[in-house]
């Protein structure tokens, strides 16, 4: 999608979409005007800011039926049945002295016509909840907050086209516009589309041949099932979820320290998707897995979702300030991911457009405010046995190093703890001790991605109540940082030496994989409204609760994070299912039914097919939140299977393809571009999961990260899929950023798709892609015998999943001959282009094949899903 189109659609898609469809010409619409579809968007975008929930200028309020019909200080403005007598129409059409809206462009003729027709047709406005008493929070008439109803599919004429209910909704709309759907895509396009969409890797020649020749009536469905069962399915779809989870392998901010175990959560996501964990359970485990009864290690690992927030360990940073930032981020991220709402807007003030007050934001915040960070041992298969076998020897050596130091230093440790805690209650008295407290909050578990505030938690726990592990770890911390209490004694006991020995032992030890998780702090924090969003300015205190717009569920006691997570995926929440299926749709069509998949609020886009969205949402919930089944349903629809060829006659009527009279051409995501080039060239490693890898990239990129070396991976790890690349927040992998991978600093539900010269340079000249071209040349030469045209045909099909036409073969042959001819006069270039030898192939020919392979990898078609 090009940039201008993004700008356009993001801004006015709601209005434009409606108008284009309802009334192509500026004449009164002949169809029945629908309040929700046609009128509410106009009120919302042009009137609410002065006549909505926040303000009622001249007493007029247009977001509630009764108030709107009653009118403002000068009487009713809507007279059902007679637009000519309605003040609203006089004002918006500009016939009198005053024009509404007073700022911005006038309403278009189409919009005025719609309002007129609506009033003339009786101004019907479906009953929603009655407004509450004055002063109480009001429920919203906005579509997204209404319960999900399962609509009956409408009737259509072209029944044979329909493959499943999705098609009925799409076709009904097309028929009302007098548009035919596009023909089905050919088999080559089908298998390429399905492979890229479901597993993120293009199909191989054998798979293509099998599918193209498969005459069984259910060949397509069989292919879908095979792909959904592949472990590569989880890798492909995990990447979308990791965007939402703002996943990264480092802390962010200035020091941007490493998080060597972040991948454990990433692997949980891949695994959960592959075993098709129902979305409700998927949700509950990630938000509150630690609170489940008898929580398993894996359920705790799932809470790593919220451990991906940034951490600031820079000297002078107030750890409490950044803890609060993290809770705010967790609350906002939850809002985007499960409510499709920009709840974070209410951090500093009441939400300007959506029914979330500042107090309600902090009530949501309160659900998360007591969850503290902790890393736990989460061994991968096979690890535990080794660990246990090595443990006795390790313990023995550790005892040898430590001797009875713990006993000898007990008085010092007690005094050090006391003075550090005194500094907390009496800051500014002695900066040495202020600094001890600060350090404890900054360096604890630094570089290990552990819980930053865990050390502070332990020091505030009475020694008798500490667990053995806590005691052990805290004593080690004291050895490393506590010298201030008694420098001579530390020198005398040679503590520096002891610490070095401990480090050496630890570095050589067999360790268990750790996982970032949560635990509920046993000393509950009080949550406050932060005035103007500043955590130092405490307003009233608040308890965990839902925003009023969602009603008040019967929770018997103080609701926990777990209660909240369960509510999120209950039928009482009208949003979670709609938001989730819309994201799936977005990945399979290039744009969601709600274009702004991150914002279902009144300022987001309106759904292009509201009934379809609700039907899908109810299907998802009724089907047990079965994600693979939902994807299967969508990709087996006739709608999905259409050709993506642009239809000239629809370019003006439906430029953004919102009616889906065809599929969309979509540029591939950054990771899939990498994975595809490695796959077609035969380099791709198939290993699933494990620690993140460091494929080669220029030093000038890696040096951007503060003091963090980039140690290049060796062997097959250089060729792992893009989602396994180490994500250093201050210096992300250049190729991924070039192709619009989001900055992993906050949740992202919709990637941009840009087109820049830097991308062209990346594809043409990056050694990673050029190595792929060399390897592809090798593959063509060794796997395909025959003449130049045969080999061109083979390479072309590897890259585009279809046979080339005769023009294409001719053009590639022309290139091949020219490149080969020019190499004849340039022998030095030959080994640089093709360092290997293939028996029976002239080295100059082989070098020209590298050039030709790189042409194939640079085709627009190669980085596009048709």
């Amino acid at each position, binding site marked *: 999608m*090009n*940039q*201008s189109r*993004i700008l356009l659609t993001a801004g006015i898609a709601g209005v434009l979409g409606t108008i284009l469809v309802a009334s192509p010409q500026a004449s009164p619409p002949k169809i029945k005007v629908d309040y929700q579809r046609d009128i509410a968007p106009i009120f919302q975008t042009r009137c609410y800011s002065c006549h909505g929930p926040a303000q009622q200028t001249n007493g007029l309020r247009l977001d509630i039926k009764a108030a709107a019909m009653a009118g403002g200080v000068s009487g009713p403005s809507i007279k059902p049945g007679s637009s000519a007598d309605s003040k609203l129409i006089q004002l918006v059409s500009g016939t009198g002295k005053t024009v509404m809206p007073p700022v911005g462009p006038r309403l278009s003729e189409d919009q005025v016509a719609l309002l007129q027709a609506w009033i003339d047709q009786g101004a019907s406005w479906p009953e929603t909840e009655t407004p509450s008493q004055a002063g109480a929070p009001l429920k919203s008439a906005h579509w997204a907050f209404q319960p999900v109803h399962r609509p009956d599919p409408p009737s259509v004429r072209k029944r044979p086209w329909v493959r499943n209910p999705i098609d009925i909704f799409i076709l009904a709309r097309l028929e009302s516009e007098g548009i035919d759907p596009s023909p089905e895509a050919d088999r080559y396009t089908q298998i390429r589309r399905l492979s890229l969409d479901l597993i993120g890797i293009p199909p191989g020649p054998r798979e293509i041949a099998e599918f193209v020749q498969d005459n069984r009536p259910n060949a397509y469905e069989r292919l879908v099932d095979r792909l959904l069962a592949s472990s590569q399915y989880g890798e492909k779809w995990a990447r979308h979820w990791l965007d939402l989870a703002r996943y990264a392998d480092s802390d962010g*901010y*200035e020091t*941007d320290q490493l998080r060597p175990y972040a991948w454990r959560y990433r692997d949980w996501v891949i695994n959960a998707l592959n075993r098709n964990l129902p979305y409700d359970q998927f949700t509950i485990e990630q938000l509150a897995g630690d609170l489940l009864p008898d929580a398993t290690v894996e359920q705790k690992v799932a809470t790593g979702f919220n451990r991906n927030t*940034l951490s*600031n360990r*820079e000297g*002078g940073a107030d750890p409490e300030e950044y803890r609060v930032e993290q809770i705010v981020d967790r609350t906002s991220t939850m809002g985007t991911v499960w409510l499709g709402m*920009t709840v974070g807007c209410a951090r500093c003030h009441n939400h*300007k*457009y*959506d029914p979330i007050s500042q107090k309600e934001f902090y009530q949501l915040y309160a659900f998360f405010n007591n969850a503290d960070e902790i890393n736990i041992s989460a061994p991968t298969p096979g690890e535990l046995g080794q660990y246990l076998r090595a443990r006795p020897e390790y313990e023995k050596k550790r005892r040898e190093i430590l001797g009875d130091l713990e006993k000898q230093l007990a008085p010092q440790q007690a005094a050090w703890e006391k003075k550090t805690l005194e500094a907390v209650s009496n*800051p*500014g008295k002695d*900066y040495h001790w202020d600094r001890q407290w600060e350090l404890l909050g900054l360096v604890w578990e630094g570089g290990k991605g552990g819980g930053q505030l865990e050390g502070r938690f332990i020091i505030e726990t009475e020694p008798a109540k500490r667990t053995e592990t806590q005691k052990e770890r805290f004593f080690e911390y004291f050895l490393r940082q506590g010298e201030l209490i008694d420098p001579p004694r530390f020198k005398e006991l040679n503590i520096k030496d002891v610490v070095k020995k401990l480090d050496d032992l630890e570095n050589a030890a067999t360790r268990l994989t750790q996982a970032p998780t949560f635990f509920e702090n046993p000393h509950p924090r009080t949550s406050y409204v932060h005035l103007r969003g500043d955590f130092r300015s405490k307003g009233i205190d608040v308890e965990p609760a839902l925003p009023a717009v969602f009603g008040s569920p019967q929770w018997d006691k103080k609701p926990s994070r777990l209660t909240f997570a369960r509510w999120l995926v209950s039928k009482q929440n009208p949003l979670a299912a709609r938001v989730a299926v819309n994201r799936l749709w977005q990945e399979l069509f290039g744009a969601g039914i709600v274009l702004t998949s991150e*914002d279902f609020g009144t300022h*987001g886009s309106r759904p292009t097919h509201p009934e379809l969205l609700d039907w899908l949402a109810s299907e998802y919930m009724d089907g047990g939140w079965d994600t693979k089944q939902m994807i299967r349903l969508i990709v087996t629809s006739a709608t999905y299977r259409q050709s993506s060829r*642009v239809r*000239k006659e629809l370019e003006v009527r439906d430029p953004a393809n919102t009616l889906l009279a065809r599929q969309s*051409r979509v*540029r591939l995501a950054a990771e899939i571009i990498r994975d595809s080039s490695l796959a077609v060239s035969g380099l791709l490693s198939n290993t699933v999961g494990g620690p993140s890898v460091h494929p080669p990239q220029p030093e000038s*990129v890696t*040096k951007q990260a*503060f003091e963090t070396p980039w140690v290049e991976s060796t062997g097959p790890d250089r060729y792992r899929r893009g989602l396994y690349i180490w994500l250093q927040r*201050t210096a992300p992998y*250049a190729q991924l950023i070039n192709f*619009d991978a989001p*900055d992993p600093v*906050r949740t992202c539900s919709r990637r941009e798709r840009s*087109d820049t*010269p*830097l991308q*062209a*340079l*990346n594809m*043409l*000249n*990056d*050694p990673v892609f*050029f190595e792929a071209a060399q390897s592809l040349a090798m593959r063509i030469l060794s796997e395909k015998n025959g003449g130049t045209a045969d080999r061109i045909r083979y390479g072309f099909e590897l890259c585009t999943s279809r046979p080339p036409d005769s*023009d*294409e073969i*001719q*053009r590639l042959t022309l*290139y091949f001959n*020219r*490149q080969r001819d*020019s190499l004849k006069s340039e022998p030095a*270039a030959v*080994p*640089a*282009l093709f360092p290997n030898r293939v028996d029976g192939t002239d080295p100059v020919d082989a070098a020209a094949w590298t*050039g030709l392979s*790189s*042409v194939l990898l*640079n085709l*627009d078609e190669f980085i596009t899903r048709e």
Partner: protein
Amino acid sequence: MNLWDLNATESRRRFLRNSGFGIGSVALAQLFAEEGRGAPATPVADPMAPKKPHFSPKAKNVIFLFMAGAPSQLDLFEPKPALTKYHNQPIPDSMKSALVDTFKQNARLMASPREFKHYGQSGMPFSDLLPHTGTCADDICMMYSLRTDITNHHPAQLILNCGTSMFGRPSMGSWVTYGLGSESRNLPGFVVLTSTSGLGIEGGASNWASGFLPSNYRGVTFRSAGDPVLYLSNPPGLNVEAQRLRLDAVSDLNQHHLASTGDTEIAARIASYELAFRMQASVPELGDFSKESASTLEMYGIQNEVTRPFGTNCLLARRMIERGVRFVQLYHSSWDDHADLNKKITKNCNMIDQPTAALLRDLKQRGLLDTTLVVWGGEFGRTPMYEVRLASPEPGKEGRDHHALAFAMWAAGGGMKGGLLFGKTDDIGFQAVENQMHVHDLQATILHCLGLDHTRLTYRHQGRDFRLTDVAGNVVHEVLT
């Protein structure tokens, strides 16, 4: 029609003209423009096409000299005799409450180890570390009363660059190129150059991120080692003719596919590849100083090892401005002198002083300073007190801590009043006492110089209209000509 026997460019043109998709004219106009044949590129497909500002501008371009790590205003720009007088005394109790960070309440005042001199008709003071910059005093508008919100490097850098300490917002260069496009057809519109004392820039790429703006507006880093632009060089074994062969084949095949799919995105991609090819020539040309005079090279200190890194970037910046690049940001790091300030700040000043002055002088003599806004400064300033976090240093090796309450930055050219001493701090430089200026005010003022109203340069994202100055900022008219 057989496309392939024709001259590649001619065939493309004919193809585009004949294609029945209604985009031919756009792509064709681009193609003509690429070939330097007049016909300005139609803005339809090019997000970087020049756009009209809100009102008539003074400045067309910006060079932002970002001194990352926060240089000490008290040792460079602000002589404070009181600091010498009360050297080693605790700070007055009345000031303590302004310090959120309780450590600093224990700190004692620190006299500057440097001498100051007054320069130009304005008598603007500079310390003996900046003798070259001092000679430009009458072109410089010195602002003494800057203030920011946070005293940690990265969040404060983000406030200065992006208007908020939150990660993920567009940076100033992105906003400016989003608002104005770029005059350059062969170079990116927003370029970042770095020179460091070894460490990277704290926070890295988030400082020139495009945030939620399209990624076309992201700052493109020109690198001092390896390719100046990532992946600019052809792979080994492919010379420029071979690259052209590749590109012609790719373009022709893409056009062929455009004909069968009808998707105009393909035309945009063809144009991107052509720009990439032009950059492969124009970027090396940019860095080729062989046509610069010996006196120019000497002025920037290119021959001198100490001044070469920053001097090279300053000269590159001038050459970019000449070629129409809209926003150039030079990073120099790090000025974070918690300890051994006197020695370390001397080293940094030796690196940047002469090139900085050369840039101002060179722009002026070429008549470019009037339309080029040069800004110099870091994310905050440094305390009038010693650093107290570190163990007591030896005498002479003290440093200063971060200070957000008052610090100095300067700007020159592009509509700023030269020789102006604007704003004032108290006797020890602890707080502003006159004309306090938040960084949001500076941002509003910079945009104003470019003809942009900071309240109208907005982008709708997640249901809200965002802007560089967040919800604050006022243009400071007193500093403008």
